[in-house]
């Protein structure tokens, strides 16, 4: 192995370490701080949109996560859908990125990564940078898969889906 190549390898390794560092501490873009969220934990959901709240500070997408078979949404013991929320930038910036009441109507199947709230409430901050994938209308992914695996899916943010990671501490 020549020295140029070694140097390249070292550079590559350094870049990987830095990238890992960024991924770890990457700021989801929020206006209040991230103190509310557990930034060490990432959850990845494929779910069905129930409502978009175009809040000017933080747009919120409410959704019902799908079951592992991707046949229907998860339901509680009372038969009602379990609903989660994912928060992100303000409505204007989100619209510029392609996320709005119009582009995420109820029934939209999508996949998103989030840092969950510390409080245990069923909500979190969108992992950003990190892709969101929207499935084609009424075309859920195969069991255990996410929207990025479905032909004709649309991405917001591009790139790979955030990888679900448990608490690292």
């Amino acid at each position, binding site marked *: 192995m020549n020295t140029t190549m070694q140097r390249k390898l070292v550079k590559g390794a350094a870049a990987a370490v830095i990238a890992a*560092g960024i991924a770890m501490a*990457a*700021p989801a*873009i929020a*206006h209040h*701080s*991230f103190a509310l969220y557990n930034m060490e934990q990432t959850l990845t959901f494929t779910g069905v949109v129930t409502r978009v709240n175009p809040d000017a500070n933080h747009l919120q997408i409410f959704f019902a996560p799908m079951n592992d078979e991707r046949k229907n949404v998860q339901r509680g013991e009372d038969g009602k859908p379990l609903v989660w929320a994912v928060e992100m*930038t303000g409505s*204007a*910036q989100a619209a510029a990125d392609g996320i709005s009441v119009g582009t995420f109507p109820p029934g939209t199947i999508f996949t998103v990564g989030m840092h969950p709230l510390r409080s245990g409430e069923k909500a979190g901050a969108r992992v950003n940078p990190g892709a969101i994938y929207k499935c084609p209308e009424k075309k859920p992914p195969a069991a255990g898969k996410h929207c990025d695996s479905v032909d004709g899916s649309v991405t917001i943010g591009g790139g790979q889906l955030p990888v679900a990671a448990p608490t690292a501490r």
Partner: protein
Amino acid sequence: MMAFAAWLHATAFSQMIQAVRWIIPLLQSIHIVMIGIVFVSSVVIALHVLGRVRAEESFQAVWGRFAPWSRTALVVMLVTGLLLVVGEPAREFSALSFWLKMGLVAIGASGTAAFGRRYGAAKAVGAARFPASARLAAVGLIVLWGAVVLLGRAIAYDVEMWGAGVLPWN
């Protein structure tokens, strides 16, 4: 830069600031109160230089009344600001507004100190004691501290203000 942020984020002290729900809003509130004192002090000093307030007092008296408050408030502002950075390093370091704000704070603090050194001992009372340059500098300091406040809030909206990935380490 972001690797350093990740390291800082993982320290026990940072984790403590993040974990206790009311710490960050409390620090932010103190931070806002302090910039209020710094900003209004610069406003009163400038209005005096322009001959609009405390015309019966010398500049020395006005400076003696407001400079210590401004200085102390600035120190508390720096301490609370530092704690906010320790609590959420990635949020601050990745924001262009944060770095612009730090630059303006440095200019504002040294500019205010220089103004005090130049005129702080002026005992004269009465109109037209200050050259145009001093009036301009005094007003400039108001604008500068005002910009510090706006940039401070803009840290939370960095993508909205400047677009994504404007800093080389983002």
